[in-house]
């Protein structure tokens, strides 16, 4: 009973508080909100040149508030190229986490300027409460070629990185770190790291025991990251050196959590039920007999 009283008491208190305090609270809040000045926004961009030559841009849009950044969902971001971002490539909405990943197809890239830089940008047009914002990145194309070499049972991944000069010659990228990854469900898994040598190549050993697809194939990506001139650039290849990975369900025949019960259980149940209900039927049969003999007597 004590419990009951205390429970209902707290319930009443909560209810009263909700009814009496809440309007006051809201009112107080709304006084502050009378200002109609626009909130500033900011875009953050991550640009990567993918293996095929497409560029991929991840854009995150946030609204600046007193307490920090608040990500905005479902907002249209326009993606554009060209020095003045005049060449609009496409438009995409931000996801639940306030970001969106957009691909600039390689055949629709803006032309590089005389120094070889291409410009990519994202624009948020703003609205009556949010300031418009835009940001852009300029990078040079970096080609990365990834090859696999198996020598004396040593399996290695080779990467060569170069850019194309004004006259069409290959200029190797040197003295730069390059990271090797395999793509996984949620992210890239790092399998090695090396520095590009004077010829613009780097080698890492392919690790053993790495699960791939069902046939043992796996994609390997070599990536130059956050380079001053080239930004992020990737190259990839596919090798058959991984361990074939297939989900094997260890389904114990004694497992009780499966959909269908173990056979012995079904058999036992049927035997027991048949036994018991058989006897019930016998008893009822006897009752019928009693009734029949009674009818015989009366006639």
């Amino acid at each position, binding site marked *: 009973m004590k419990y009951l009283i205390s429970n209902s008491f707290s319930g009443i208190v909560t209810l009263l508080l909700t009814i009496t305090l809440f*309007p006051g609270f*809201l*009112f107080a809040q709304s006084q*502050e909100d009378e200002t109609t000045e626009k909130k500033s926004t900011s875009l953050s961009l991550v640009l990567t040149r993918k293996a095929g030559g497409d560029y991929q841009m991840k854009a995150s849009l946030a609204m600046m508030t007193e307490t920090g950044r608040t990500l905005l*969902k479902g907002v249209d971001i326009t993606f554009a190229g060209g020095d003045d971002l005049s060449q609009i490539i496409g438009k995409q909405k931000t996801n639940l986490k306030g970001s969106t990943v957009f691909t600039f197809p390689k055949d629709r890239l803006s032309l590089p300027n005389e120094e070889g830089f291409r410009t990519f940008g994202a624009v948020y047009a703003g609205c009556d409460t949010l300031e418009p914002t835009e940001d852009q990145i300029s990078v040079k194309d970096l080609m990365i070629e990834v090859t696999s070499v198996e020598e004396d049972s040593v399996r290695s991944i080779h990467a060569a990185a170069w850019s194309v000069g004004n006259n069409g010659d290959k200029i190797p990228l040197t003295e730069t770190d390059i990271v090797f990854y395999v793509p996984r469900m949620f992210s890239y898994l790092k399998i090695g790291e090396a520095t590009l040598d004077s010829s613009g190549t780097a080698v890492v050993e392919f690790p053993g025991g*790495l699960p791939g697809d069902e046939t043992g194939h796996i994609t390997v990506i070599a990536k130059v990251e956050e380079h001053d001139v080239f930004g992020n650039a990737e190259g990839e290849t596919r090798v058959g050196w991984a361990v074939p*990975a297939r989900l094997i369900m260890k389904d114990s025949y004694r497992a009780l*959590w499966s959909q269908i019960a173990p056979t012995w259980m079904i058999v036992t149940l049927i035997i027991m039920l048949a036994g018991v209900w058989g006897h019930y039927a016998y008893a009822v049969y006897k009752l019928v007999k009693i009734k029949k003999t009674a009818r015989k007597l009366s006639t």
Partner: protein
Amino acid sequence: MKCMITLKIIPKDNNMEDKSNSRRQFLKLGAGAGAFALAGLTAGKLLSAGQENNANSGKKIKVLTTDGRVLEVDESQLADPSLDVVVDKDSSHLGIENRKFVMVIDLAKCKNARACVEACVEGHHLPSDHEWIKVYLLQNSEREAPYWFPRPCFHCDNPMCVSVCPVGATYKRTDGIVLVDNERCIGCKFCMTGCPYSARVFHWNDPPELHETAPYSPETTFPHKEGTVGKCVFCADLLRKNELPRCVTACPMGVIYFGDIVEDTVTNGMETVRFSELIRDRAGYRHLESLGTEPSVYYLPAVNRQFPYERGFDGLDPKQKERYENTAAYKINPLLKHE
């Protein structure tokens, strides 16, 4: 361009229209929580800004930002997040092909920041007192060091909860995830007594009705249903989009790693490592292995920890702190104030 976020005065007399919304706002404010929110715009609905093609329905909905401001927006401009991720019931019974999910929790990094709990409650629209992930303060024996212990559902490979269910409302998929079909559940609570990890919670009363329009899916277990059981779903809805569970992305410390055991990779959103190497190098283990439930959640022991465990009480809501006051680790510690 017309924007849908409008800041305006909310008339005093008309603010009890949407009872469930306002109650929720009140609860949120009362708890002083919500500092962490992915969008900052809550009240159950998510705010999408900048849409042009929205016809004004005229009905205004109040939403609350994380910084405590009340915004009023047109109802038609609120995006319903549960709508775009719903998988129908039949598909939700099948696991994601050739995947077997695994979670690794690094106890050395956890300092009870409770971001995982808040993101989970927020993301799954859980009613108050429902927490699918809980943070325990454990101490194995008197002379051993206490440690913070986040506990989601373990998605066991030999799940007692599934074995004991009389109607098949809870089931295990090929990708290892154990789900509850709240439209099948009869509420006998046998699974709750069957689970040795207290991972399941029960809707003792009618959960607040938000998103009435959202179709139900066991992957979201939403809308919640009175008299049925709820539990951590490993964010099965996000996994379909190759996105990490909410607790993983929310954790500021990168405590929780999540991945696929078939490709032997786990990630905490910051670093990606091989599962087998992580378990080998950090002596990973499963909690209460002796029970034979074969959990899919592994723990890395709290060695070389980054914070003393007392830090876990920093900035904790007094109400929240009270919850740990019956633990031995709290009682014996002279550093913690005992009012």
